[in-house]
């Protein structure tokens, strides 16, 4: 077993990991390593061949692989080490990683600061307990995306898609362009779970019907999917008897949510927010374990990759500062809480002293859609700290509220800050 030491080690090379590694290097960390399980850098971006990436970061509309390539280029120019085709088997609270790969076998890496950037995994059929048989032809949208876009295979001819997540809608378009028939997209909730722009560009433009408040009641077929039984649901998401309809198809794609992938984080002792499924972090994306940071979708599921890049940069900067012993030790910790119609807020804690030095962006999602102008408001001890207005609030789209250094005064002595989303 070989042993090596780094200033910053980043686990995962999707948009969060790439940005973290680059930011770590740019902020003074000398030895930076990215460990990636696949044979090349880029993570899931490599299978996202559709456009829509980079409008915030580059003011350009790029496909996923092109977006990734800009960062991969920087990684190479900055002399960041990479270890590909390698899996981290174990992470300790002392920031030691045990890694396996074909070339070196088992090796260990000790990091002064560690950034977890494992992204997320897709929610599966079992987790939403779709009844029925267990034939071939039931796939998560991401698995199908990899087959179609990377491996060059079609996983079916006639599709039903359960869930209106972004990957599902994007795959509906992709499969249609590849000559498949996409019968329907079913969404159990009364609203879209992905971005509205994907609904317009991927479903509407291709005449693919979306059925809100509908789900799959049963999967039919022993060897390969032969049909699914769809049904309408009531406000409690219970199936409405008599609403059932059999849809012949050979494939059911699931786009029913993403779950941050935090098994390594847990091993390292990182506390997980039960709502986000990701670590509890501060504005540097520093977890409760000293020197362990989290970047991007591993913290919570972002709606746009550009925001993941931004979060990765913060985590990487924090990791570099920690590795150099320059990260400000937090003294006045304020808990950030989800208020009216807010499902969660990241970061879950902020430091007023840090806020005095630099702005902090709060990121959150609403519980229920409001299709009217809303106030996003931060309240501490009954006093409004800041608020801003947006045209609507939808669960599928992340909201942000910037806190500025001049607001630090109003937070002095506060223990908690509540974020509310109310109709104007």
């Amino acid at each position, binding site marked *: 077993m070989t042993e090596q030491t780094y200033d910053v080690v980043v686990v995962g090379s999707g948009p969060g990991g790439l940005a973290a590694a680059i930011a770590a290097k740019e902020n003074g960390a000398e030895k930076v390593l990215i460990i990636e399980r696949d044979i090349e850098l880029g993570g899931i971006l490599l299978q996202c061949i559709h456009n829509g990436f980079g409008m915030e970061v580059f003011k350009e509309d790029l496909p996923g692989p092109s977006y990734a390539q800009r960062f991969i280029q920087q990684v190479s120019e900055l002399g960041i080490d990479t270890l590909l085709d390698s899996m981290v088997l174990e992470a300790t609270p002392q920031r030691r990683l045990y890694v396996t790969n074909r070339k070196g*076998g088992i090796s260990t890496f000790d990091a002064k600061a560690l950034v977890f950037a494992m992204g997320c995994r897709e929610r599966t059929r079992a987790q939403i307990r779709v009844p029925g048989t*267990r034939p*071939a032809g039931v796939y998560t949208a991401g698995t199908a995306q990899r087959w179609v876009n990377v491996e060059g*295979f079609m996983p079916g001819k006639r599709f039903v898609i359960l869930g209106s997540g972004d990957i599902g809608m994007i795959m509906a378009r992709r499969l249609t362009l590849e000559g498949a028939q996409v019968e329907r997209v079913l969404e159990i909730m009364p609203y879209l779970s992905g971005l509205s722009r994907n609904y317009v560009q991927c479903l509407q433009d291709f005449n693919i019907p979306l059925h809100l408040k509908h789900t799959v009641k049963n999967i039919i077929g022993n060897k390969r999917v032969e049909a699914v039984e769809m049904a309408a649901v009531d406000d409690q998401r219970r199936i409405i008897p008599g609403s059932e309809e059999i849809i012949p198809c*050979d494939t059911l794609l699931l786009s029913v949510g993403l779950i941050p992938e935090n098994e390594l984080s847990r091993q390292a002792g990182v506390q997980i927010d039960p709502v986000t499924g990701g670590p509890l972090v501060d504005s540097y994306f520093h977890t409760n374990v000293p020197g362990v940071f989290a970047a991007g979708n591993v913290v919570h599921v972002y709606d746009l990759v550009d925001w993941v890049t931004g979060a990765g940069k913060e985590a990487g900067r924090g990791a570099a500062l920690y590795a150099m012993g320059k990260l400000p030790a937090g003294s006045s910790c304020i808990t950030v809480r989800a208020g009216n119609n807010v499902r969660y807020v990241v970061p879950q804690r902020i430091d007023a002293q840090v806020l005095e030095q630099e702005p902090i962006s709060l990121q959150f999602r609403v519980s229920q859609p409001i299709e009217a102008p809303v106030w996003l408001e931060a309240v501490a001890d009954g006093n409004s700290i800041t608020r801003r207005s947006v045209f609507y609030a939808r669960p599928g789209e992340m909201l942000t509220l910037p806190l500025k250094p001049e607001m630090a005064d109003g937070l002095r002595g506060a223990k908690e800050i509540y974020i509310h989303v109310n109709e104007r």
Partner: protein
Amino acid sequence: MVEKYDVIIIGGGVVGCMTARFLSRYELDILLIEKASDIGSATSAANTALVHPGYDPVSGSLKARMNVAAVPLWPGLSAELNFNYERSGDYVVAIGPEELPKLDELFERGKRNGVNGMHFVSGDEMRRREPLMNPDVSGALFAETGSICDPFGATLAAAENAIMNGVTLMRETAFEDFIIQDKRIVGVRTNRGDFSCRWAINCAGLYSDFVMHKAGVRPDFKITPRKGEYLILDRAEFQLRSVYFPVPNEVSKGILATNTVHGNAILGPTAHEQVDREDKANSSDGLQEVMEGARKLIPAIEPRHVIATFAGLRAAGNAPCDTPGVDYRHDFIVEIPAEVRGLVNLGGIESPGLSSSPAIALRVIDLLRDAGEPLKEKKDWNPIRPARPRFRHMSYAERQAVIQKDDRYGRMVCRCENVTEGEIVAEVHAPIPANSYDAIKRRTWLGTGRCQGGFDLPRVTHILARELGQSELEMTKKGPGSAFLTRLTKQVEESHD
């Protein structure tokens, strides 16, 4: 007739494979036929994964005798065949004072059946041993011989050991009829042609009635499949310390909550009769019933802990017990019937069929010997089936050593269960080659974790195709008709209207 065998075993479930393994000890040409694309893929792959101590079956029944006789065989068998087996003990748990007398009944029945190592545990002690237990627990019956095992692993290991000792296995080979001359079975007709034999052994499980009726035996015997639905919990979220049964009811042992050799808790099964012998669909009612039943014992279980669901079918029969004075109508059949010569007839091997399987195999051998079969032992019979490396169970030093020998063990394919490419390749080239995704999954436990194959599926399909020298388009989930992929992208297809 093309090929001649001394013995043809019909059905490659745990009973057929155990029978093949124990019978491979003797100078016999044996053919084991299995209609599915893999052995052990029906009832033997979808059950509660327990070896029962034997206090549950009706005293005097063949079920009780086989179960109790098999219990002491399992530790040695797992040592010889290298499958996962752990004598964890099991508990029947009484909730509330009204259930306590049932424990006495079970204890008495266990004693009558010859079960050793049972004792009572107080409610307080039960809560101490399992902090997640329902606080209303009033007491429990502990049986130290209760065990958890990998039922498919046991089936596979037995079959591989049989093959090592000369047994021929043919998969995708379905029994169609017997060839009978002068009331003697002289061969078996299959979808792959006829095979001659001196003995046929009916190990057809859910189809055992169909098979025996073809020989004119027990026309009244009928299999009524009884479905059991199960939930599997994420071991990162929820773990149990042992095996917990509720007090049993008339139909079944009830919905239990148990740990497994893989570390995941299993909940189930339901027990509902059905006509269809292939329908293993889960239902929302069934899954709800499992959840509610299990929460009676372990209230903290929540739907979000579930990572997988499955259902299995018990091959429940209607054979009356032939012990005088015992009125029981769902007994095992393990017999040489009078109606026809050359048949060892098994039927109704439902729960505790897995538990009983080694004893059933030995009883088959006794019956053959009693029927005058010489059963000469092979000089070179090898009872040891070696295990293949399992990365997740190894220390780092062991991992390093195995990667140095074959670097494919260094590449992780299933990130949740830590299954490597080396393990997949080894299973494709094993004595019973894994030839489908589910076959790989059952052998390695790949794809059974949190992501349920979402990550590994395209990778496994690729490796499987490469190792089998076929196209990925031909790769299946579970044999013919279950291909994952339909065509290449960018291919122009005919209009699909």
